[in-house]
């Protein structure tokens, strides 16, 4: 939610204010100004917080100048008081000695815009607080690491597929080796059978030729 209302005052005199929403913050702020300005020395510097409904009013008094803001209850204290410190510095740097004699709402036209900008900055920008920025960065790191875990798990799934496929390739190549050896053996035996057939035919042909030359099936004239 963030900071919703900001105001700068000298004593009881409101010099500038800005409200981001329609609320009675201005009335409550003036009551708080009355409370903190009575019963105590006007030059006391202090940092206090007042709780009102769901909101907290943070007040910072320095050198007679009061800076006040209203923030959500859950917004904490570090950012609102950093806001008050920043507004105080900007106000003193801008108006310097004129603060002491300015009438009510004298700086409201110019400084309310500065209040608006700084309220936006301290409410929304993570860089306003170093702890918040570090928290955001750690959350980003954790998100990236969770993404990394997801990607590594997906890679693991793909590697499992690859293990299965390479295992199948291994089996197929072993089967290929076995079948190629069987094919080689078949071709070799076929070659052997062909050689034997060739030898048999050659022997038959030679026998027939000799039978003709020797004038008889028993080759009788060649044995004498």
């Amino acid at each position: 939610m963030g900071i919703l209302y900001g105001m700068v005052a000298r004593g009881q005199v409101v010099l500038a204010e800005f409200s981001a929403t329609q609320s009675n913050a201005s009335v409550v702020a003036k009551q708080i100004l009355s409370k903190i300005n009575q019963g105590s020395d006007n030059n006391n510097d202090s940092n206090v917080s007042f709780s009102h409904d769901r909101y907290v009013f943070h007040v910072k008094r320095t050198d007679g100048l009061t800076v006040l803001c209203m923030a959500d209850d859950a917004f904490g204290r570090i950012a609102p008081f950093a806001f008050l410190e920043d507004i105080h510095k900007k106000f003193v740097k801008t108006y310097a000695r004129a603060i002491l004699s300015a009438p009510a709402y004298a700086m409201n036209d110019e400084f309310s815009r500065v209040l608006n900008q700084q309220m936006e900055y301290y409410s929304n920008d993570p860089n306003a607080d170093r702890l918040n920025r570090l928290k955001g960065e750690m959350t980003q790191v954790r998100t990236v690491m969770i993404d990394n875990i997801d990607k590594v798990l997906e890679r693991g799934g793909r590697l499992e597929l690859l293990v299965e496929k390479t295992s199948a390739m291994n089996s197929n190549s072993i089967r290929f080796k076995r079948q190629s050896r069987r094919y080689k053996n078949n071709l070799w035996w076929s070659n052997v059978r062909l050689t034997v057939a060739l030898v048999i035919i050659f022997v038959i042909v030679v026998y027939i030729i000799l039978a003709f030359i020797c004038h008889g099936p028993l080759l009788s004239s060649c044995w004498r």
Partner: protein
Amino acid sequence: MSFQDIEAGRPFGSRRGLMNGKQDPTQAVAAGIFQINTAVSTFQRLVNTLGTPKDTLDLREKLHKTRLHIGQLVKDTSAKLKQASDIDHHAEVNASKKIADAKLAKDFQAVLKEFQKAQRLAAERETAYTPFVPQAVLPSSYTASEVDVGSDKSPEQRALLVESRRQEVLFLDNEIAFNEAIIEEREQGIQEIQQQIGEVNEIFKDLAVLVHEQGAMIDDIGSNIENSHAATAQAKSQLSKASKTQRSNSSLTCLLLVIFGIVLLIVIIVLAA
């Protein structure tokens, strides 16, 4: 707020629970080896500091504690590795698990060798250099507080003084309360950051275990591919022999046909005559 939405979108705790359910001795050994690696890196960094101006008695004490811690881790991981080996011998486990366990044993030996080298270097440097003892700063004595003489003040001034002092005390109490509130809020933020860093640490450990498992898978893939390569090479040589036999076979078939033709020719000539 948006970060929490991202967190709600993917429940990471259930995945971690699922991962924890699959813890077997092999993964325990892998996690142990990873922890030993981390501790040995820390030890080496401490050893590199010996002999520099940062070498103090605290550093020596830290070095000693780290050495004891690594010894304890080595003992635990060795017991787990033995348990995993026993499971490999007794039960009917697949070859990939045996390969994974062998790889883990090799990694474990490499880590031990690294640690022994670092230990030897530490022993050399511890004897060569003496630790740098910083000079103790003597505490300065307190200034004596002023003795408040109140006898010379009037009762009215004394009442004003008491009132002013009471307001100062109130002011200080307010300041203390304010600062304590700021400090408490800051502490809460820092604790949140610490918690997130712890979570990121867990994520890194899980990632290391996952990457280690996938290293084993890649080893499986490598061995499968090498076996396929060898089998295919043998098949290729068998096929080349078959090719030579086939060429010889064709030659013999041609020769047989030629002889058959000649015989047929002779028969025809004889019948014609």
